[in-house]
């Protein structure tokens, strides 16, 4: 234990901000901004003070209800810490993007900060009960943010989002109860060790019979909805398009990472053997998520739905690498392949978070200027009245397309570099996703920014200085990761090596 409970502090900080924001009236935005900034600073502090070996650090452990396995058990490695930094950045972006919230701003920012706190909680928890609490709690502010400040069809969208995720959670919960009944432990680290030694499967078989595979499916179901994996994704386009754009930034930038994080922190370590058994069908689903996700974006006419499907596609690459690496490997080359894939996944989580949030931020800026219009065919020639908007959004779009020199290329390269030798068929089919995503994104640029400028957009206002200033650091991050990925990988890689050393497939 450290002298300062920095992880607890980080989780509590936004909650305090949330309470203040609730009563701050018109100053709520300022409160939220300051709180989010503080959280970013603390999360960066955590990032730079991670233990060098890649293991879990900053552990806080207090007995809670030991008889029933509950423990207040926190700790982060590079995987968790990177998600903390990402959540903090995305929350800050989201708060900055929320100009238009005039209706009950106090409540709005209260929910946003509460969501941030629950995200922090779920990325630091090392005990299932504790983790699940935050996993479920995070739904509540997200639900109300969509329900109260969303678009015209927000009601059904919010409901669908809630039930869908919850249905997945129930499966997850039941599976974990079974694990607890068999082992008496809810501790991720302990369960990982048991899984590695084979004791976990023995215990489950002894208590409940040969149901390990079913438990693995239950756990996967929970994450499949959250990530999402096709065909458990139908809640996503509706939710992303009906949520207000700043909330969509939070959903895609930070919340969608809870699913991938869960796969890496819970599913692979504890059910690695079972996942390896189901690898073939899971890879089919991953490839379907990559390819069909991109392809479904082709037919969309709403910018937000396009980016929503493109989001499905981008997280599909994470799934591809995760399931591809779930196989026993031998020799140096095999371990390098696994390490490349896992480095790629973790970096892709961060990259996608930043890029997707930035894309929805641009949608928010466009909607601010058009009074909500965001159809693909509603625009044309916007580059003439708004060259800076076109240029900066162009950079972000090309980041999403995977252009070298920008962030996404590095993680996608690593994912394919790792996945190809582990399963060349899945990787080869998945490159189709790279192709289709490019087509979709270039189509957006052509329809929105090129061609003659219609009369109604002739005086479309360009980005003003404060917007440019806010975007500059985000684009700076994209370039920095694209050019010097070692900045992050030097911290991520030790954790990757450490994680892989404890996983058994």
């Amino acid at each position, binding site marked *: 234990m450290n002298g300062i409970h920095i992880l607890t502090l980080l989780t509590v900080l936004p909650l305090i901000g949330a309470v203040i924001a609730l009563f701050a009236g018109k100053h709520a935005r300022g409160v939220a901004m300051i709180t989010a900034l503080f959280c970013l600073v603390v999360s960066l502090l955590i990032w730079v003070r991670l233990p060098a070996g890649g293991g879990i650090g900053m552990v806080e452990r207090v007995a809670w209800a030991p*008889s*029933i*396995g509950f423990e207040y058990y926190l700790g982060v490695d590079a995987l968790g810490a990177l998600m903390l930094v990402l959540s903090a950045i995305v929350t800050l972006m989201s708060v900055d993007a929320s100009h238009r919230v005039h209706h009950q701003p106090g409540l709005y920012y209260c929910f946003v900060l509460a969501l941030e706190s629950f995200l922090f909680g779920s990325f630091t928890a090392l005990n299932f009960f504790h983790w699940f609490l935050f996993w*479920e709690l995070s739904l509540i502010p997200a639900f*109300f943010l969509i*329900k*109260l400040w969303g678009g015209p069809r927000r*009601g059904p969208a919010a*409901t*669908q989002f809630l039930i869908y995720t*919850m249905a997945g959670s*129930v499966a997850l*919960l039941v599976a974990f*109860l079974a694990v*607890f*009944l068999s082992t008496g432990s809810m501790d991720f680290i302990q369960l990982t060790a048991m899984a590695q030694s084979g004791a976990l499967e023995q215990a489950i078989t002894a208590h409940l019979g040969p149901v390990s595979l079913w438990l693995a499916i239950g756990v996967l179901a929970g994450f499949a909805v959250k990530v999402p994996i*096709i*065909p458990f*994704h*139908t*809640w996503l*386009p509706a939710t992303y398009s009906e949520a207000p754009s700043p909330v969509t930034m939070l959903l895609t930038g930070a919340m969608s990472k809870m699913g991938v994080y869960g796969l890496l922190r819970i599913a692979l370590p504890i059910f690695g053997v079972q996942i390896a058994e189901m690898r073939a069908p899971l890879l089919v689903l991953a490839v379907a998520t990559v390819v*069909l996700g991109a*392809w*479904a974006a*082709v*037919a969309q006419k709403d910018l937000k739905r396009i980016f929503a499907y493109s989001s499905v596609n981008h997280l599909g690459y994470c799934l591809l690498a995760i399931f591809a690496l779930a196989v026993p490997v031998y020799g*140096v080359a095999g*371990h*390098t392949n*696994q390490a*490349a894939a896992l*480095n790629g996944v973790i970096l892709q989580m961060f990259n996608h978070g930043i890029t997707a949030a930035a894309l929805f931020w641009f949608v928010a800026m466009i909607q601010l200027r058009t009074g909500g219009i965001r159809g693909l065919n509603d625009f044309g020639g916007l580059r003439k009245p708004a060259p800076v908007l076109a240029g900066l959004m162009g950079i972000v779009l090309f980041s999403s397309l995977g*252009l*070298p*020199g920008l962030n996404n*290329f590095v993680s996608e*390269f*690593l994912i*394919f*570099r*790792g996945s*190809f*030798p582990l399963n*060349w068929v899945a990787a080869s089919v998945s490159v189709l996703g*790279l*192709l289709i995503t*490019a*087509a979709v994104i*270039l189509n957006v*640029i*052509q329809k929105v920014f*090129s*061609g003659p*400028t219609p009369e109604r957009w002739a005086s479309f206002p360009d980005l003003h200085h404060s917007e440019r200033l806010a975007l500059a650091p985000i684009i700076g991050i994209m370039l920095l990761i694209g050019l010097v*990925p*070692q900045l992050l990988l*030097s911290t991520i*890689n030790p954790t990757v*090596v450490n994680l892989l050393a404890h996983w058994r497939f």
Partner: protein
Amino acid sequence: MIQEAVSFTPQFAVAPVTKILWLIPAAPMVAAGVIALLKQPQRRTAAWLAIGSLSFSLLLSLMAFAHVVGGWAAHHAVRETVNFTWMQVGAANIALGWILDPLTAIMLVMVSFVGLLIFIYSVGYMAHDENYTRFFCFLALFAGAMLGVVVSNSLLLLFMNWEIVGLTSYLLIGFWYQKPAAAAAAKKAFMTTRVGDVFFFLGMVWLSAQSGTLLFYNHGSGALEGLALTGLLAQHAALGLTAAGAIGLLIFAGAMGKSGQVPLHVWLPDAMEGPTPVSALIHAATMVAAGVFLVARVYPLMQDGAAAGGTTTALIVVTWVGAITAVFAALIAIAQNDIKRILAYSTVSQLGYMMAGLGIGGVALGMFHLITHAFFKSLLFLGAGSVIHGCHEEQDVRRMGGLRKAMPITFGIYAIAMLALCGVPIFFSGFWSKDAIIDAAQRWNSSVVPYYLMLFGAVLTAFYMTRQVSYVFFGKWRGHQPAHESGKIMLWPMAILAFFCVALGIIGTPAWPWFDAFLGNQAAHLQMGAFASSEFLMMLLSATVVVLAGIGVAWWLYGNKSPAAGEPDALEKATPWIWAGLRDRLYVDELYGATVLAFYEWWGRVSDWFDRRVWGGAVAVVAWLFSLWAELNRFLDEQWVNGGFDKGCEELSNGGGLLSEVENGRVQIYLRILALAVVALAILLIWSSRA
């Protein structure tokens, strides 16, 4: 060819110029970054930054070139590399690096020199454009990335620069973004090349996984040398290919995209929507030739262990693709009426020759044509730009004519480039480079068909160029306003290029095959006797016949009597069917529209429908079943249980109601399910802790 038993010693020691080689691509890239921050009216600053940075690159390139030539003269095989770790994954490093060897040295000089001349030309050509600063920004970024492709000693770094090159090509084709045709052409170019690039990408990850490195050369541990290459050659992939051959072919697919090889050639003619200096620099001299350079760079993979001049599956594929492209594009060029499109198809055709040269005779044969072509084809484009400018942005050759009087200097320079492209013997560089390829094809031991294809292509080349020159410079003026000659800032760069269209031939004659020797690390000696060899005389004879046939027939059909606008073309009258087919580009675009693109759009709609109806429908059914069950549950609750649990749920949902206008009954049901689950969990846990 003279081979002497001089053995070249490898030179790995890194010279000072190699240490700073990275500055060559970095300088224009930095300039591009600075220009991007300039404001629109700062036109002169933008132009000076671009030209200044590229001059710096040219200077460094010349120094590097001199260094390599010096090493070559002292019988050193110069191959200096500087490598560094870019990323660390697991226990492995992913390294990048740059290289100085003869191949890089030659390309560096060509790219920076031709680039600089075209930059200067652009100052005049783009003088009236409102987005002048942006133009130079993109142009400088392009130059940096292209030079980056050339100096890369890592397939990954090469790929990264390769994609940036593709980006700048996209941006510059769509430079006049308000024209829908330009925006569409830009997208088409990017997508078509990306089709090739995804195969390239796969080849790259495969190579990385197989050999553990993406460095080309690294003192014996690079992917193209030593154990790694031996391993690739020993590994069998599919279809009788080794891993090396299969990876080579995947990389070649990327080269096909960038270099417009059939069937991925469709984007290049459309790319002519960009400003003409862009067509000259990117779509004639440098970027499209990057594919040829790439194949030359990874030649050890393509060669698949065979001796020089040997045939392997990969090289056979390269040769056939090249030869077919050479004829296919030349045929279409005959029936085009846009001055730049004729040249674009000509470029596709000549790139085919280069590829075939690589496939048949090795690196030097293809690369020499790449270098000579860069000069005469960029000059042709600059000449076309001058004509277009002089004719008030007219591009249709049917509305030109007799320009040799109005634009005498342009005409003279254009004629030189045109004769070089046709391959007029002895005096023009195109003869030495192109006919060497055709000559080598005659002796290719796999098949003679490519030889005849390329011979036919050469006739067609002479034909379509004569037709174009007749339309543009001879006959009567058919335009509206009188044409005018271009300014000095445009003519001077053209004159310099024209000089090299003639002079470059000297370094690639059979009597003094310097180019070949330099790239192959051999000694070159002057031996005039080679001109008297029967081989050379046969080549001279066939080339003369071919050129005369092409020029003669075209002059007979078009010379001084080009039809006026609206009148049918001479060939159209004779063979309307064939003409229509060629004019409509042999319907390749239509074919793609009806198949690949139609499928793409259709499947997109199917995916969307599937999402909404099938998956969405399944979800709806499940949701309905659940609400049914919940309704039943509530009924039982209210009627039978009626306890505190129900009340708790009520409070929960009331809380929700207070917070919002939640009036949707379903949500309350779901909250109730959640509460149920939590209670169930608690009961289970308590039960288990007792046990």
